[in-house]
């Protein structure tokens, strides 16, 4: 059973309503890009109890398509599903089709219905958005539509839940065995056809609509004047910029409070853990089972979050690591729990509020219908660098995270445009970079919020300029050609659904926390171990506690790795401890902050009172006595993080979306080279100017 229809008619909303799912919907054509399936229980709603039979039907939500003649890979998939050519994924020909039609735009959306009806499949036409049509004063004669289409026609509202029972029943009647619905074959070219089959179809659809749909001209909100303003040349751009600025302003002003609350919360947890642990070593017989048990519990939690199953291998890993943890001396265990686990996770989770707020507003904007206007306005600018206007929406999402951005690039039809967009997206400032920006801002401009915000804005702009510039270079070199000219439907404005925004945000937050609870936790623990072991021989003595800690770090695995790459990064002004952070952050950027707090925090062990990370970093000196985090080093680090490709999950998604590792590797190389060179220039010129 397939759900078919034009883009943005509410197929996914209907799918969610019927099957009780929460797939992503938005008021923008082309949101659904995968086949999504759900088992649907349908039953007759007849009063006769003998008719209450029910069956399970597999319901498939297809990407939207305008016609059976596809113009993008997703449409191709949808069209082939309808024709029954994708038997490997969906079994044979679909057993039935629900064509979703937009009640506020019946004529346009009926055109596809006519094409689907010609496939001679059992078909139901669901007229969705009936609530919006009512509000706009549109009356539809359903009996007349039924007669003209020759198939069941059911008014529904996916948002309000109207007509769902009737639709279920119709699906049931249609798929009930031993009853074949006679589909109507229609001539695709009626008299007066000029050789364009679409003209004929449109004429047919117009005819149907004329006799069965009445419009009350006085009703309905007309937003034409608003649209005129928002799509105008000058004002449209200003409006777009103000909307974006407002969103970013809201993020930074609203996120402050929950962020400091989270920070305090983790600080408190760290304190509690510290207090709970005994101060004097217990007897091994007592301590070993406790420590092993705690470690096993953490493993169980992480596996549960990540959905990892307890196979032989994963169980073995959990047991071996837990036994090792059980053997740790008490001091090491304390350090692992506080510096490694709590500290590592805290450094990442602080950014949850910002991500949530950004996604909340993006979803609201998408749902209102404004995003299509945004793409329309940006087309003029983006075309110059070889990007389509439609790249605007993925680029906006990429400011939260490159991965949903790359997924959103599927709304771009042509392959060339999509590829260019995917390749430049990770240059935009995603929220994983924010920890690093915040840290550098606090280090360099802690005393001047004004300078700090200029630095933030500059980092965002640098990412954007680099993305546009790269697109331009790609257009001239590796991926020549022009962006496909814009043909984009501008959907009607709709009141955004808060519920939808809320659930999308919740989903995003879950993904993020899952990542923090598993990958980041793992990296933090491995890092802690490699920065702690091997230990210094006990017979050498150091004059101060501090020197001892520093020597211990230098002697550890992480220290050795950092020293190994030191010559490569020395021209950028990084010392070997920063290099440890650079190495670990190739897996995920935000790890830099937790790495630095582990690396430098360990080096500080024994100081009288714990200092904040920033204060600790500010005090670091090089062997020659100069400060490590000079203006030149700070800015060079910032620039490196703006531009470098340091995110394994993004690379995996790039590979999946482009179909080969080639482009993922290309992306990695060009971004890292760009980052290195730009950071080199920044450091060397600032150092020459005396800021080192």
């Amino acid at each position: 059973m397939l759900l078919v229809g034009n883009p943005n008619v509410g197929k996914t909303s209907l799918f969610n309503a019927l099957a009780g799912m929460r797939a992503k919907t938005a008021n923008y054509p082309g949101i659904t890009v995968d086949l999504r399936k759900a088992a649907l229980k349908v039953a007759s709603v007849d009063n006769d109890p003998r008719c209450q039979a029910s069956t399970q039907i597999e319901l498939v939500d297809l990407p939207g398509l305008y016609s059976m003649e596809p113009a993008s890979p997703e449409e191709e998939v949808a069209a082939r599903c309808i024709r029954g050519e994708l038997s490997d994924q969906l079994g044979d020909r679909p057993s039935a089709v629900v064509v979703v039609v937009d009640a506020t735009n019946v004529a346009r959306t009926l055109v596809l219905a006519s094409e689907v009806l010609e496939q001679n499949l059992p078909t139901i036409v669901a007229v969705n958005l009936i609530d919006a049509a009512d509000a706009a004063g549109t009356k539809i004669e359903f009996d007349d539509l039924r007669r003209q289409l020759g198939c069941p026609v059911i008014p529904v509202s996916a948002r309000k839940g109207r007509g769902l029972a009737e639709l279920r029943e119709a699906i049931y009647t249609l798929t009930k065995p031993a009853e074949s619905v006679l589909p109507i074959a229609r001539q695709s070219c009626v008299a007066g056809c000029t050789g364009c089959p679409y003209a004929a179809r449109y004429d047919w659809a117009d005819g149907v609509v004329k006799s069965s749909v009445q419009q009350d001209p006085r009703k309905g909100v007309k937003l034409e004047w608003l649209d005129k303003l928002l799509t105008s040349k000058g004002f449209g751009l200003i409006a777009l910029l103000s909307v974006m600025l407002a969103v970013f302003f809201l993020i930074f002003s609203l996120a402050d409070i929950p962020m400091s609350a989270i920070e305090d919360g983790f600080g408190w947890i760290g304190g509690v853990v510290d207090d709970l642990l005994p101060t004097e070593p217990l007897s091994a017989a007592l301590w070993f089972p406790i420590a092993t048990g705690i470690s096993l519990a953490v493993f169980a939690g992480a596996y549960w979050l990540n959905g990892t199953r307890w196979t032989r291998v994963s169980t073995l890993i959990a047991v071996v690591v837990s036994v090792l943890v059980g053997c740790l001396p008490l001091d090491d265990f304390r350090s692992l729990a506080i510096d490694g686990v709590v500290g590592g996770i805290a450094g990442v989770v602080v950014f949850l509020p910002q991500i949530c707020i950004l996604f909340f507003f993006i979803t609201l904007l998408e749902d209102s219908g404004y995003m299509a206007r945004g793409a329309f306005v940006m087309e003029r600018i983006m075309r110059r660098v070889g990007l389509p206007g439609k790249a605007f929406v993925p680029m906006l999402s990429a400011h939260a995270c490159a991965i949903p951005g790359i997924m959103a690039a599927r709304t771009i039809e042509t392959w060339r445009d999509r590829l260019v967009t995917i390749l430049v997206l990770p240059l935009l400032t995603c929220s994983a970079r924010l920890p690093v920006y915040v840290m550098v801002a606090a280090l360099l401009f802690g005393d001047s919020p004004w300078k700090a915000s200029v630095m933030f804005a500059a980092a965002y702009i640098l990412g954007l300029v680099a993305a546009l510039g790269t697109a331009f270079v790609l257009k001239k070199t590796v991926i020549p050609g022009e962006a496909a000219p814009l043909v984009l439907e501008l959907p009607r404005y709709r009141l955004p659904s808060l519920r939808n925004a809320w659930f999308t945000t919740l989903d995003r937050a879950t993904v993020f926390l899952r990542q923090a609870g598993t990958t980041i936790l793992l990296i933090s623990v491995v890092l802690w171990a490699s920065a702690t072991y091997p230990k210094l021989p006990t017979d050498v003595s150091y004059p101060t506690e501090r020197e001892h800690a520093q020597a211990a770090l230098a002697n550890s695995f992480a220290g050795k790795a950092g020293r190994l790459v030191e010559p490569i990064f020395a021209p950028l002004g990084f010392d070997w401890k920063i290099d440890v952070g650079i190495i670990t952050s190739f897996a995920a950027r935000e790890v830099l902050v937790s790495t630095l707090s582990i690396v430098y925090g360990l080096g500080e062990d024994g100081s009288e009172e714990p200092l904040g990370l920033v204060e600790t970093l500010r005090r670091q000196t090089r062997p020659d006595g100069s400060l490590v985090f000079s203006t030149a080093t700070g800015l060079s680090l910032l620039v490196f993080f703006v531009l470098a490709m340091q995110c394994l999950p993004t690379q995996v998604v790039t590979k999946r979306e482009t179909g080969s590792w080639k482009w993922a590797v290309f992306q990695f190389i060009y971004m890292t080279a760009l980052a290195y060179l730009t950071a080199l220039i920044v450091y060397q010129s600032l150092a020459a100017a005396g800021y080192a």
Partner: protein
Amino acid sequence: MPMVQAPSLTLADANAGRFRCEQVLAAGLDAVRLKRLGICAGRELELIGRGDPMVVRIGESRIGLSRQLASLVTVEIQVP
């Protein structure tokens, strides 16, 4: 006397107003993308906002259209 064919007006050069679409000269995918949204021979459309891209209304839908494609659509003015 040779027939002088009046140069036909394309959507790219038109002023805002109502038109009847004469011919779509685009080829390949561009043609498909135009036609299935209803920009095809014989259909009526209304140019709302000029510029690049421009806004065209066809029936109940509004479509953003780049000038490049609009120049491939010839139209004749429709007197209301």
